[in-house]
C-alpha cells in the first residue's frame, strides 16, 4: 500500500463520516442529509463511466464490430478478466477496480472468495438486483422486529424503486406492504414454466413466483424504465437497475455533503472528542485524517470488520462469518429446442423458487434465461472441448433455465480473524467452509428440485450441479451482529460513536438476497443518528466542515 512517495497530508472534520458509498452507505446517508447534518462520504474508489443510454440491445450488438466496446470494454477489460470470473463481474470495468480490493483492504482468504469493487457504488454496480424483505420468522433471534424495519423497508423501496408481483405465491415471501412498480415481462420459457406451475401446483413442493427486483418498470427522474435490452450483465445503460453510484451523484450535490473518493480508510481510532479516521489517497499515497463526531462504517462486511476489530484491539480472536451456501443447476425444456433466442428480455433473475428444508427454513433460488449470458460463459461450465461446448450451448440455449440456489447461512462455517502485521495495521484473514451436513442438504434439495422441475417439463442437465466457492456470490455478513458486538442501532459495543451499517451487523442470513434488508437497516441506523444528534455541534448546512490542508 502506498508504495510511492507520500504527498502532504489532508485534515478534514465532519459531524458524521460514512465510509463506503454502496447501498448501505447511501441508505445510511439519506436520513442524515435530509436532516441537514454535515456528512462526509468516503470511498476507496471513484466514479466509473456508465454505458451510453442509447446502447443497442444485446442481440443487436452481438456480431457487430462497432459494438466491441459495449461487450468487452474500451480497453478490452472483459477479455483480460475472463478466466474464472462470474459473468456479472467479468464486464467492463476500469482495470484495477477489482484487483486492488483485497490488498487495499488488507484481506486474505482461503476457501472463501472475497469480492469487492473499488468504485463508487461498490458492488451495486454488478448486483443481481434481488430485493426481498426478510419476514418475521427470518428475523426471529434478532434483537429487532419486522415492525422496527418496516418503515425503512417502505422508505428504501420508494427511494430505489422495486418491481414485482403483489399477488403470486411468493409475494408474501418477498415482503408485503411495499409500494412496488409493476412486474417485469417474462421471457417465453419463464411464461411456459409459470403456466405449467399454475396447473400442477398442488402436486409440487416448490413454490414459484416473480422475482422481486430493484429494477424500474416506470421511469423515475433521470432513471428510465427497463427496456428489456438483455444487457443487464454489462451494467444498465438506462439506470433502470438500482445502482447506489447514481445516488452518490445526487447526494453529493447537497450543500451539507462532501465526497472524498479514491481514499482507503486504514484505521478508525477513538479521539478525545470523537473519532479519528486515518486514510490514504490511493492516487498519490497522501495521508488523510478526518476528525468526526461519529463514524458509520458501510465499507462492506470484510473491510468494516477489519476496521472494527482493529479499533477494539481484538487480534487473533476468530469471529464467525455467515454466508449463504450456493449451488447452481441447469434445467432443459426439450420442447423449446430449435426456437429462436428472444432478442429482448430482462437479463437477470426472472423467477424465484423456494423449496422447504424444514418447517422453519427454505432454500431459495433465482431462475435465469440463457439469452443474456455469453456463450463463452456457458461453454466454460461444460466438460466438453470449447468447439463442441460452443455448439452445444447454441443448440440448447433457447430451452435452458439456470437456477442459482441458496441455503440459509446456518449451513456455512466461515471465520474471520484479525491478525497482527509488522506495520501494526492488522490484516483480516478469512477461512471459508461449510457445515458438515451442508453438502448433503444441497444434494437432497437438488434432487427434490429436479423432481418438481421434471413435473413442469424440465430435465436437469447431467453434471450441471455445481457448488460455488463460499463468498463468491457476495452473500455474507454477520461478523458484528446486532445485540452482541453492536447495539440494536449498529453502534459498536465498547466504542461509542462508531457505527456499522452494512451486512456485518445482520445476526444471520436466510437463503434470501439480503441487500434490501441491509439497506433498510442502514436507513434505520441513519434515522437513529439523526434522532440522537447532539445539539451543540449542529451548524448551518454547507458551512459545517473546516478543511485544512497541511
Amino acid at each position, binding site marked *: 500500500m502506498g508504495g510511492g512517495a507520500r504527498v502532504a497530508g489532508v485534515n478534514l472534520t465532519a459531524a458524521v463520516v460514512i465510509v463506503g458509498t454502496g447501498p448501505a452507505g447511501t441508505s445510511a446517508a439519506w436520513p442524515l442529509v435530509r436532516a441537514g447534518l454535515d456528512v462526509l462520504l468516503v470511498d476507496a474508489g471513484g466514479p466509473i463511466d456508465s454505458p451510453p443510454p442509447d446502447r443497442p440491445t444485446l442481440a443487436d450488438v452481438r456480431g457487430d*464490430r462497432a459494438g*466491441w466496446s459495449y461487450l468487452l470494454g474500451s480497453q*478490452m477489460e472483459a477479455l483480460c478478466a475472463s478466466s474464472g470470473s462470474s459473468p456479472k463481474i467479468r464486464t467492463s470495468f476500469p482495470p484495477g477496480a477489482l484487483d486492488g480490493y483485497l490488498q487495499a483492504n488488507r484481506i486474505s482468504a482461503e476457501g472463501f472468495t472475497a469480492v469487492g469493487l473499488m468504485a463508487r457504488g461498490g458492488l451495486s454496480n454488478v448486483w443481481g438486483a434481488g430485493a426481498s424483505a426478510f419476514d418475521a420468522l427470518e428475523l426471529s433471534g434478532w434483537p429487532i422486529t419486522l415492525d422496527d424495519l418496516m418503515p425503512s423497508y417502505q422508505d428504501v423501496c420508494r427511494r430505489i424503486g422495486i418491481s414485482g408481483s403483489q399477488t403470486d405465491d411468493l409475494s408474501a415471501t418477498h415482503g408485503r406492504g411495499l409500494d412496488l412498480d409493476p412486474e417485469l415481462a417474462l421471457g417465453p420459457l419463464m411464461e411456459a414454466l409459470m403456466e405449467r406451475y399454475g396447473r400442477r401446483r398442488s402436486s409440487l413442493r416448490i413454490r414459484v413466483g416473480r422475482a422481486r427486483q430493484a429494477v424500474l418498470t416506470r421511469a423515475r427522474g433521470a432513471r428510465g424504465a427497463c427496456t428489456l435490452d438483455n444487457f443487464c450483465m454489462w451494467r444498465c445503460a438506462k439506470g433502470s437497475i438500482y445502482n447506489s453510484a447514481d445516488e452518490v451523484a445526487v447526494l453529493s450535490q447537497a450543500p451539507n455533503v462532501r465526497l472524498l473518493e479514491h481514499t482507503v480508510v486504514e484505521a478508525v481510532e477513538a479521539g478525545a472528542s470523537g473519532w479519528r479516521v486515518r486514510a490514504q489517497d490511493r492516487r498519490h499515497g497522501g495521508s488523510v485524517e478526518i476528525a468526526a463526531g461519529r463514524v458509520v462504517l458501510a465499507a462492506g462486511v470484510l473491510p468494516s470488520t477489519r476496521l472494527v476489530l482493529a479499533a477494539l484491539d481484538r487480534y487473533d480472536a476468530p469471529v464467525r462469518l455467515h454466508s449463504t451456501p450456493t449451488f447452481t443447476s441447469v434445467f432443459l425444456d426439450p420442447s423449446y*429446442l*430449435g426456437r429462436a433466442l428472444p432478442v429482448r428480455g430482462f437479463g437477470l433473475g426472472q423467477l424465484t423458487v423456494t423449496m422447504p428444508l424444514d418447517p422453519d427454513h427454505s432454500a431459495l433460488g433465482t431462475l435465469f434465461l440463457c439469452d443474456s449470458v455469453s*456463450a*463463452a460463459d456457458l461453454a466454460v461450465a461444460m*466438460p466438453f*472441448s470449447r468447439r463442441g461446448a460452443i455448439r452445444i450451448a447454441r443448440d440448447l440455449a433457447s430451452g435452458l433455465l439456470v437456477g442459482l440456489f441458496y441455503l440459509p447461512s446456518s449451513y456455512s462455517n466461515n471465520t474471520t480473524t484479525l491478525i497482527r502485521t509488522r506495520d501494526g495495521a492488522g490484516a483480516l484473514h478469512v477461512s471459508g467452509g461449510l457445515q458438515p451436513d451442508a453438502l448433503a442438504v444441497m444434494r437432497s434439495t437438488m434432487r427434490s428440485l429436479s423432481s418438481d422441475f421434471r413435473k413442469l417439463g424440465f430435465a436437469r442437465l447431467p453434471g450441471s450441479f455445481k457448488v460455488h466457492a463460499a463468498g463468491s456470490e457476495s452473500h455474507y455478513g454477520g461478523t458484528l451482529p446486532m445485540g452482541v458486538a453492536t447495539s440494536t442501532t449498529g453502534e459498536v459495543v465498547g466504542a461509542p460513536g462508531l457505527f456499522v451499517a452494512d451486512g456485518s451487523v445482520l445476526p444471520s442470513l436466510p437463503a434470501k438476497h439480503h441487500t434490501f434488508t441491509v439497506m433498510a437497516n442502514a436507513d434505520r441506523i441513519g434515522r437513529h443518528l439523526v434522532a440522537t444528534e447532539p445539539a451543540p455541534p449542529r451548524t448551518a448546512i454547507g458551512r459545517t466542515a473546516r478543511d485544512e490542508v497541511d
Partner: protein
Amino acid sequence: MAAPLTDRRLLLNEAVVLLRYLGVTRPALVQMRAYARAVGPSATPLRLPAFVHRWPAALRLLDPLQRSSPLAARLDIACLLLDVSLEGRRLAYAYEPRNRIRVWFALAGTVALEGVMLGARWVAGRVWRA
C-alpha cells in the same frame, strides 16, 4: 511495454489458430489484435504443435480438460471474441428458429463426438502440455 515483434506475430498466429478451431473461417485482424492485447504485453506464445497450425480443428484433441491451464485461459478469450463477429454470432447464438429435428441430430452428433474425444483429450493432455 510491447512484446517483441516476433512474439507478437506468433500471438497473432495463435489467435488465428484458436479462432479457426472454434469455427471462424476468416478471423479479422481486429480480433487477432484484441486477442494479443488480452493475453497481455508480456505473454509468451503457446508452443502449439505444427499439425494444429495446419489443421486448427485438431486442437480439439488438445483442448484441456484442466480448466486452469494456459491453453484453457486463451481458449476462454477466443470464445469471448466470437461475440464480436457476425460469423461468431452465428456459431454461438441461434437468433433464428431452426428445425427441431435437425437441432436434436446436431446435438446428438456433437455429444457423441465429445464422448469419443474425452478419452483422447485425456491421453493427449498427459502427452502434450502448453
